[in-house]
């Protein structure tokens, strides 16, 4: 049960990221993993939720390269995590155009800055699935 007077879903998520962990939730009634963090599980409506720490491995579901004027091209990708949920993220340490659908990637915590909370990014995992 999430007590929103004490802790928000995003708050718990960020606490994990500060420790270098990528946390997600599972509905204990139907066993399904979901993302983004919520106070109730989508579909079942269950409030019987469990936080788990991901092993950090996923696969690129789709990808784009955004072009802001006067900046280097930037990757934005959707990552399917091995635990069965999807998130938007970015694959770093590689030319954005070389981020390919099906590529295996590994989680790394980005620390954020004064304006942005920590968030997960990914790097090539060097394996194929």
């Amino acid at each position, binding site marked *: 049960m999430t007590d929103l007077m004490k802790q928000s879903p*995003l708050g718990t998520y960020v606490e994990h990221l500060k420790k270098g962990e990528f946390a997600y939730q599972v509905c204990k009634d139907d066993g399904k993993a979901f*993302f*983004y963090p919520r106070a109730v599980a989508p579909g079942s409506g269950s409030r019987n939720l469990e936080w788990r720490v991901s092993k950090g491995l996923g696969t690129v*579901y*789709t*990808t*784009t*390269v*955004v*072009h*802001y004027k006067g900046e280097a*091209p*930037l990757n*934005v*990708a*959707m990552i399917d995590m091995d635990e069965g949920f*999807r*998130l*938007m*993220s*970015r694959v770093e340490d590689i030319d954005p*155009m070389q981020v390919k*659908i*099906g590529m295996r990637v590994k989680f790394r915590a*980005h620390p*954020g800055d004064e304006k*942005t*909370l920590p*968030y997960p990014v990914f790097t090539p995992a060097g394996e194929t699935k």
Partner: protein
Amino acid sequence: MTEMLKRGSIAVVGAAESDLGQVAPHTSPVDLMAQATLRALDDCGLQLKDVDALYVAATQVRMGPMSLAEYLGIKPKVFDGTQIGGSSFMTHVAHAQMAIQLGLCEVAVIAYGSTQRSVSRAAASPREFNPYETPYRPILPISAYAMAAARHMHQYGTTREHLAEVAVAARKWALMNPKAWEKEPLTIEQALNARMVSYPFTVRDCCLVVDGGGAIVLTSAARAKSLKKKPVYVLGVGETLSHANISSMPDFTVTGAAISGPQAFKMAGVTQKDVKMLSLYDAFTITPILFLEDLGFVPKGEGGRFVANGGIAPGGKLAVNTSGGGLSYCHPGMYGLLVMIEAIRQVRGECGERQVKGCDVALAHGNGGVMSSQCTVIFGSENAL
């Protein structure tokens, strides 16, 4: 919901655009809505005092029905400000049909206006902060559709040339529409080599950013018969929501059109073969490809190959977006109302050089958010009843 609605129980009797393109400084979105409303009333011969229901959604006006009712000095009995992005107006048709069928109102106006070119897209449609997406700096909504295109290309062999075909077809149609924003021809090479925005999309894969608006007037089939223009009947409607943020879209290659389309076809009692013209919300070049598939006109995955070699250009296999679409005619932020206006005009036979012969049934499909809401309306002439 649509099981309760009766095929042909209401009709569009008036339809009009506001001024389009770049309007005079300080013009407000409600100025454009009001201008379009009175033009649409003139189109059918009804008066402002006849209007007893108002349906409004806009990005720059938070409480649309209130703002337009105040501006026009009317007190509608029924009002609805459902805001689900560019498909809001198709949903308004369905909601107006419920209200008219139930006898809650008689004459409904659906209106829209935007000055996004004048004030900038960022000012006209500020995006909500999302802690799970905003840090990655996608250019939304463009990057969401770009990722759908990338997945479709990966899964089905769709190419950037196929996407460019959609832009070129839209431009060819636009050159036959005096109201279209774009006036110059476009080639596949020009589209492919244009400035890259969010791979695989160049600026030519993306809709226009212009000012504009529109309005349509609907009433019961019985009352429609006595008005100036031939009624355009609402044969079928369908609507669905599948997600809000792109991260939560279940399958990037399948839109909710696969749900709204069958609802609308079932209610209309027609099949794809009966549809002579399609008005498909083309915010980006991938969307007509997805909607041709999801609405059942092309097998899943074949949309790219279908649009190749001028498949949806003038003289092609299927008449799609004869106005020139959001890509070349007009895209004032939420384009769904103008998507319907072209289909309505085709059924009336008012489209001049670009008129599709014998267009007794036309389909208008709206898309909102990041493929989030999908709404389909099938229009028909008296012959289709």
